[in-house]
């Protein structure tokens, strides 16, 4: 592999990793901080992708507006879902959470089948992002992938700032390590959880919207990303946003280079990575030792 190919593969790794981060940071918030095993997280990604498909005819050329509209809709959806279903789950054991959220997957898939059918759909990137440019003289790189990378970077930075520099972030971090303490301090934990959950849904939906022009929109797209999200959360350390970022990038690199160099193992390179890391650090890279 020459240097140019290597650099382009690095870019691919970062781009994939950052998209994974959008997805798994939402899961980190819900699973890691609120303690809910949310199997339906992949469905939020799917809903995001279908939102992009539904909104594209009207807002496709104003792509950033479209993303903002989608995020607002997702926040509303997350708020309602938390109120209707998830608020009852925090005190339940994991088996009940798994059953409930699995049921939600089935409901979302059926609704999708009724509303938009089982076909595969494409979403065109907006015209101003449609082309590609020559990269290091060897391959044209789609502008849209650059855009996706930039958006993911901005969101990652915003997440980092929010979690580490704001009052909300402080409460979230405190809630991750000691829920009772936060409640004891008189913080409205119900409201906090509702906000955090809505954010998680919005992040997954945003990932779906961004992925739509790259990945096309199809049934069951949510379930295929769910496992990899859990892998990221476990590698990063449950509850740690920084861990999720590091783990996402790591998974992005291992998956990308695994595909190229170890064709035979590419299906399991990511799981090998997880196994190795868990042997070395059972609590994940940034997880708290208990």
């Amino acid at each position, binding site marked *: *592999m*020459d240097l*140019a*190919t290597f650099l*382009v*593969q690095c870019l*691919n*790794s970062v*781009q*994939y990793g950052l998209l994974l981060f959008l997805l798994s940071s939402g899961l980190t918030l819900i699973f890691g901080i609120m303690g809910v095993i949310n199997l339906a997280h992949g469905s939020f990604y799917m809903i995001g992708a279908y939102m992009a498909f539904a909104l594209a005819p009207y807002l496709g050329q104003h792509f950033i507006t479209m993303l903002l509209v989608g995020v607002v809709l997702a926040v509303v959806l997350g708020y309602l879902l938390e109120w209707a279903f998830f608020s009852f789950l925090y005190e339940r054991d994991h088996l009940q959470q798994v059953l409930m959220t699995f049921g939600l997957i089935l409901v979302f898939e059926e609704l999708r089948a009724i509303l938009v059918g*089982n*076909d*595969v*759909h*494409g979403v*065109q990137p907006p015209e101003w992002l449609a082309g*590609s440019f020559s990269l290091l003289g*060897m*391959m*044209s*790189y*789609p502008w*849209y*992938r650059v855009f996706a990378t930039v958006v993911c970077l901005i969101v990652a930075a915003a997440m980092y700032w929010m979690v580490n520099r704001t009052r909300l972030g402080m409460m979230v971090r405190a809630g991750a390590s000691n829920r009772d303490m936060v409640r004891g301090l008189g913080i409205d934990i119900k409201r906090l959880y509702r906000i955090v959950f809505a954010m998680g849904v919005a992040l997954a939906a945003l990932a779906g919207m961004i992925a739509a022009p*790259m*990945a*096309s929109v*199809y*049934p*069951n*797209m949510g379930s*295929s990303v769910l496992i990899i999200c859990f892998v990221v959360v476990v590698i990063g350390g449950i509850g740690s946003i920084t861990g999720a970022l590091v783990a996402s990038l790591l998974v992005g690199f291992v*998956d*990308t*280079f695994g*595909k*190229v160099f170890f*064709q035979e193992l*590419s*299906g399991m390179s990511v799981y090998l990575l997880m196994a190795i890391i868990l042997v070395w650090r059972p609590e994940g890279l940034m997880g708290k030792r208990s």
Partner: protein
Amino acid sequence: MTKTVWKLNSLKGALTLATLAALSGPVLAQEKIKVGFMLPASGTFAALGVAIENGFRMYVGEQGGKLAGREIEYFKVDDESDPARATDNVNRLIKRDKVDVIVGTVHSGVAMAMARAAKESNTILIVPNAGADAVTGPMCGPTIFRSSFSNWQTAYPMGVVAAKQENKKNAMTITWKYAAGEEAVAGFKEGFEKNGGKVHKQLTLPFPNVEFQALLTEIAAAKPDAVFAFFAGAGAVKFVKDYHAAGLSKTIPLYGPGFLTDGTLDAQGEAAQGMLTTLHYADELGTERDKVFRTNYAKSYKLMPDVYAVQGYDAAQMLAVGLKAAGGDVSKKDVFRAAVEKATIASPRGDFTLSKAHNPVQDIYLRKVEGKENKKLGVAVKGLADPARGCKL
């Protein structure tokens, strides 16, 4: 007491025997032929299952609902596209419903389990899609027929065209690491290398992974003359779009078997334009037979037919030929088999006969994507028979 019971029983027995003797002939002849559909009714392949069933029922409908003078009764089982459930599902048709003929399916892994069950129970099986080479290869059987294609068969001609007509010298292949993909790639390689080309690298990724960017970068770096890809459904849409987005479609032509662009053109849009693929059917064949078929299908189902509908239609034609020779008696398996083996099926795709291993010997068309259609450019290989390696019939 005992004696009376015995007498009564023997009387009953005699009566039953007499009734049976009197009725057996005509009763059997009037009994319906039981056709068991084992097709995907849910999941990714559901639409394909519907098209196959529509095609089959349309042919039977054209014959007035009867084949060889006997009415057809349908039984249905969802194959769930799940090989692990396949044996149970097919046994529901064979053992519970006692069907005379099984028609199915789309998924190759499921079709293999069905072939095994059909062979063991000596039931007639007509495969209306699944392309696994093994079905008419090592797994072939006297009562197993295919109305569709083998994976090898749809890809080999693309290799011939790429090397001879398009003058490509070195190619790369890319597919999912699963049986259908590997068989198609092997077919392409054989056709390409026999005609002077060389496949210098074969890329794979796990099924059903669709993050292709890393492998596209490898293709861009290697700069082959051509790329052959086998993907289907959502994966086909994404691959063709990614290939286009990476700017590769301008410099390195992308080839594939027709499944790369069949039923996916709406979603692929501009990215698929001009692509060449090979398949045993195309959207515009221009023959009288095909025109009639397409008009009737569109009228019956308010849908445009596709290759799957054709394969379902021909499955019914093959059944009709066999039944007619056997005088409607499904138990005459040897007569049934001999008739289907000798027959020429007047398919909308063009006439075809069956190879010794019961796979269609058919023209494979070269098609080009224009707008939302796979237009026929010509015949890539005429009367191509699957080599049926490993079949002992």
